[in-house]
């Protein structure tokens, strides 16, 4: 059959059908482009527009102004909010990355030695990861219950230790929230680290052994350098995930006590949907975008140049 005969039977490809091998991709991409354009691109552009207005959710068309920007960015509580966000994000990311890496290393070792329990451990961690944020917050609220019968305090009492004010002490509450977030998020890092460990070329270890490296040297001079790209990509993903966390905090502490756990996303939500201040919320949304983009670029600059995704 000649090429012409084939192409005449390919009405879907249209004009590009003559070059049978390079049909136009755009009809295929159209649904995605439409959905992403309508629900992501256009709203994001509108967020930038709103930031230069004094719009509220109560109605009215609003006027263009630069003062919203200045007002929001000089709010006295913003410093506190950004600090809380930083502690929450840094604590969660470092905790998830370190514990995830440690679990992956131990699981790989345990599998090699045919130890019992690796599958149970992995599955349990993953179940925690699948738990929806709201439910996770409710579960941890039960554990942090400060009454003598609370899930952690009654355990402490059995061990003969003093109860902790998990959620009402402003100095403790942030670490409680970080702990609950590490519980929910670590499985992802563990799975990524596990897959990256399995992808390391075994001949590197053989070479290290020939050179007389011990276990610790193998870890620091072979394993960790080989994992670097995977660790950085994982850190980008979990940082953004953590910055956007909202439901797990709203159902655990609601941002309290006071503002002790009100992270930027929760604050933005409150500004828009509790105070109806659309313009101020848009400025805060831009701040969120800038922070995630900035952090992603910082991490990406540590990636080895030739392996950049």
């Amino acid at each position, binding site marked *: 059959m000649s090429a012409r005969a084939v192409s005449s039977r390919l009405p879907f490809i249209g004009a590009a059908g003559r070059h049978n091998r390079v049909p136009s991709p755009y009809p295929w991409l159209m649904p995605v482009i439409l959905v992403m354009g309508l629900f992501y691109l256009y709203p994001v552009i509108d967020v930038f527009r709103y930031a230069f207005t004094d719009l509220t959710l109560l109605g009215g068309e609003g006027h263009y102004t630069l003062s919203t920007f200045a007002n929001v960015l000089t709010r006295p509580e913003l410093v506190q909010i950004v600090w809380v966000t930083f502690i929450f994000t840094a604590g969660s990311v470092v905790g998830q990355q370190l514990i995830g890496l440690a679990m992956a290393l131990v699981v790989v070792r345990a599998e090699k030695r045919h130890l019992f329990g690796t599958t149970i451990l992995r599955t349990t961690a993953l179940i925690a990861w699948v738990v929806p944020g709201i439910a996770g917050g409710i579960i941890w609220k039960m554990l942090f219950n400060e009454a003598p019968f609370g899930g952690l305090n009654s355990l402490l009492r059995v061990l003969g230790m003093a109860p902790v004010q998990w959620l009402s002490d402003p100095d403790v509450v942030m670490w409680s929230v970080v702990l609950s977030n590490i519980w929910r998020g670590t499985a992802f890092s563990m799975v990524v680290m596990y897959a*990256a460990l399995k992808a390391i070329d075994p001949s590197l270890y053989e070479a290290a052994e020939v050179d007389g490296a011990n276990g610790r040297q193998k870890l620091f001079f072979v394993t960790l350098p080989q994992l670097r790209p995977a660790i950085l990509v994982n850190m980008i993903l979990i940082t953004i995930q953590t910055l956007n966390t909202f439901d797990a905090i709203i159902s655990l502490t609601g941002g309290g006590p006071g503002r002790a756990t009100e992270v930027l996303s929760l604050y933005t939500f409150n500004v828009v949907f509790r105070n109806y201040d659309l313009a101020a919320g848009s400025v805060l949304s831009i701040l969120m975008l800038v922070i995630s983009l900035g952090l992603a670029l910082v991490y990406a600059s540590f990636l080895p140049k030739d392996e950049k995704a």
Partner: protein
Amino acid sequence: MKLSSRDRLGDILSYAFMAVMFVFFSWPLIWLLSMALRTRKEVFLGVYRLIPKFPTLENFTMVLTSSQFPVYLINALKLSCLSAVGCLIIAAPAAYAFSRFDFKGKGAWMLGILAFQMISPLVIMVPLYRYMSRLGLIDSHFGTVMVYIALGVPMVTWLLKGYMDGIPKSLDEAALIDGCNRLSVFIRIILPLSTPGVASAFIITVIAGWSQFLVPFLLITKDSLVPIGVGIFQYAGTQNASTIQVLAAACLISVVPAIIAFLALQRLILSAMTAGAVKG
């Protein structure tokens, strides 16, 4: 001999670490289950009655026979399944194009789609809430499903593209020579061969939809239309210390479907989700 004793020490340390981690990850779930099975009296006995002496299913019956909870569950199931189907319909053709065609700016398109996932749903909900209320799509499952779809499309596109990459291109070429057009190659050959990929994408989107809170919390105000994520949040707000065991049962009921769906396809989902991060 020295080596084997060191190995044994390593084994002991591995077991110790794994045991600590297992307790950390399982304790909240064990506690939830324990609470849900207790009577009101036993709740106050804390950890001493981790295994209740008088276990009861009454809390579950109470939740499941209440007037709202079954409705919340059905709403959540409907929203997450519809959005998963919608996601697949929209993402599958694009995934095929990304997998099979060479065109200018393909890498940029793919990264662009992925970059949208960095944006917090909260950011787009700020203007979307305004549009939706103007269009009268507040309290409509249709509007909510559309937003769910948009949130899921980037991930599903990448997932399906990755899966289709594993199907030999020679199949397409053979079918094209036999007179199929691209559309029928896609529908009759590639899609059926992608069933495992489609299934895991479907399950991932259903789980994500089941876990949704922000979008329905903002877009749905009528109690009869609310999905479980919002329902349980509002329910928790009305509870106090004397009904903690009922809340635990409700929470467990809301979590178990997601866990079952995940466990059913665990292997597929994990390999799909980590592929991107490891290649990077």
